[in-house]
């Protein structure tokens, strides 16, 4: 009987396991993972920190669910080696034979070598255990380094449980990878109004304290804090794969083709640990988002079972809740698109902002703060690569537009822009 081994128990790994079981009840599935926990939602971890979601609710699957799907689970294992000749995965406990191997080992949060980053009170937010040690530490004054989605969500969560929170960002605006400067400054304003201090364009130089974090020095000020949370990025867990001769891309992720195959036969990879490509531009990207990981897992699993299904690339969609206001970033930012001709459709209200980025008549990105209606439809236009003129042609024809009901929400959103200009 065929034996499929999945390394990793995150979004991609579980999506792969479920896709296999949906199509094939016979094949044997073994899941190997480092954490001794059944699958939980990593995206909801900040909500667990804030108390909005209970610990029990975090779990997507219970141990019984694995048994019911007849998935053998080997938790608490560290992968030492992949023996590609013998088709065997060597962990610190046993050797697991595989016919096909799906690597979904994800990534780990990094702490850069800043003086004092080894003191007690330095944390990252990546796993459930990370959150639990933060809660045990009883944070009061918190310094969050980095203002990506993890940084801001954690800052908001800790602010919600009564901590004094300061966010320090090296780049000149918050959410540097998700939002353009203007919406970012609107979000920053909302955070500041609620009492979170935000310092952008500042570099952390050192953390000091006697055994435990007491103070942090940036290039402009010193900040008193008993907790430092690092949200500066992740590193792909690929060391064992590299040692086995699996090709690693330039950005540091496992290189896969559009079937999620690696260069070694019978080994597939998906999720955070792979280097995929952007659906809109085709450029290489490390997508670290939940929906992309799930889709990649599904593609890897289906190809593993002998189907031939193509992955059409990662696309980013991030939804943030900023004190009750929804901020959404989809596709590329104007920084990603760089120089070149981009057109910008923009509308700004007091606490609202939306901007659509267009290149060659095609929607390349959308950022919205305080607006949610029609965003899914614009996302669909972006995914389908419908040009704006095609869209306008359909919407101007009364018979055609009745056939595509979802064009209506998009039309209301896209027609309502007053400020249209060429990008600089």
């Amino acid at each position, binding site marked *: 009987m065929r034996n499929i081994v999945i390394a990793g128990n995150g979004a991609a790994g579980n999506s792969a396991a479920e896709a296999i079981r949906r199509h094939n009840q016979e094949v044997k599935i073994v899941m190997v993972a480092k954490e001794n926990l059944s699958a939980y939602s990593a*995206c909801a971890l900040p909500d667990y920190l804030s108390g909005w979601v209970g610990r029990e609710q975090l779990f*997507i699957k219970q141990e019984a669910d694995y048994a019911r799907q007849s998935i053998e689970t080997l938790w608490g294992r560290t992968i030492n080696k992949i023996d590609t000749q013998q088709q065997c995965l060597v962990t610190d406990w046993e050797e697991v034979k595989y016919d096909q191997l799906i690597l979904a080992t994800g990534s780990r949060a990094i702490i850069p070598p800043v003086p004092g980053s080894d003191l007690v009170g330095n944390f990252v937010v990546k796993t459930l255990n990370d959150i639990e040690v933060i809660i045990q530490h009883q944070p009061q004054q918190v310094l969050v380094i980095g203002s990506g989605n993890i940084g801001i969500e954690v800052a908001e969560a800790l602010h919600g449980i009564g901590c004094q929170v300061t966010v320090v960002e090296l780049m000149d605006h918050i959410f540097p990878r998700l939002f353009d400067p203007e919406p970012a400054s609107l979000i920053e304003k909302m955070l500041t109004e609620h009492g979170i201090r935000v310092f952008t364009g500042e570099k952390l130089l050192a953390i000091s304290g006697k055994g435990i974090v007491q103070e942090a020095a940036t290039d402009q000020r010193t900040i008193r804090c008993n907790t430092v949370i690092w949200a500066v990025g992740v590193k792909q867990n690929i060391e064992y794969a590299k040692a086995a001769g699996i090709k690693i891309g330039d950005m540091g992720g496992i290189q896969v083709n559009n079937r999620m195959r690696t260069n070694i036969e019978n080994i597939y990879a998906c999720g955070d640990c792979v280097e995929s490509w952007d659906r809109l531009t085709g450029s290489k990207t490390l997508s670290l988002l939940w929906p992309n990981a799930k889709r990649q897992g599904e593609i890897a699993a289906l190809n593993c079972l002998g189907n031939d299904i193509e992955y059409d690339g990662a696309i980013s969609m991030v*939804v943030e809740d900023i004190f009750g206001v929804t901020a*959404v970033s989809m596709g590329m930012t104007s920084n990603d698109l760089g120089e070149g001709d981009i057109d910008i459709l923009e509308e700004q209200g007091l606490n609202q902002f939306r901007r659509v980025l267009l290149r060659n008549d095609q929607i390349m990105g959308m950022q919205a703060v305080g607006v949610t209606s029609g965003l899914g439809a614009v*996302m669909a236009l972006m995914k389908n690569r419908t040009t704006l003129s095609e869209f306008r042609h359909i919407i101007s024809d009364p*018979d055609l537009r*009745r056939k595509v009901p979802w064009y*209506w929400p998009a039309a209301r959103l896209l027609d309502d822009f007053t400020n249209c200009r060429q990008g600089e």
Partner: protein
Amino acid sequence: MNKQIMIDAAKCTGCGLCQVLCSLSKSHQFNPSLARIKIWREETRGVFIPLTCQQCVNPPCVNACLMNVISKDPITGVTVRKTENCIGCRACQIACPFEACSYDHLLNVVVNCDQCGGNPACVNICPFGALQYLPVNEALNTCRDAEAVRRANL
């Protein structure tokens, strides 16, 4: 053959009975905001578009869900939710192009049309035939015939 709710927007008058009945059968209240079917209203143009879950084959809401609440029922093909795991983050609502996920503010979860298990209340009440519950092939034929008639009369 599985059945699906077929929407003929040209027949919709925007009366909203479907919404009232949907909220009644699902939440035991007459409250259109709880309905799982919505009517996109463009009153100045006299256009009313009923929007409800289209039961997509590869739905964006399934991938957007952080808690793996949403899945496709392997037998009926309906998009179903284990709402007890839903944390109400509303990511699915934003991902859906049809604006077809409804936030149930009584239970603080997001829900979508489940076709009432095969006897949809909205279809039963629709006075103008804008909503019909038909086997998939028949629905497609109806659409095709209507389009053929329209083109013949051009």
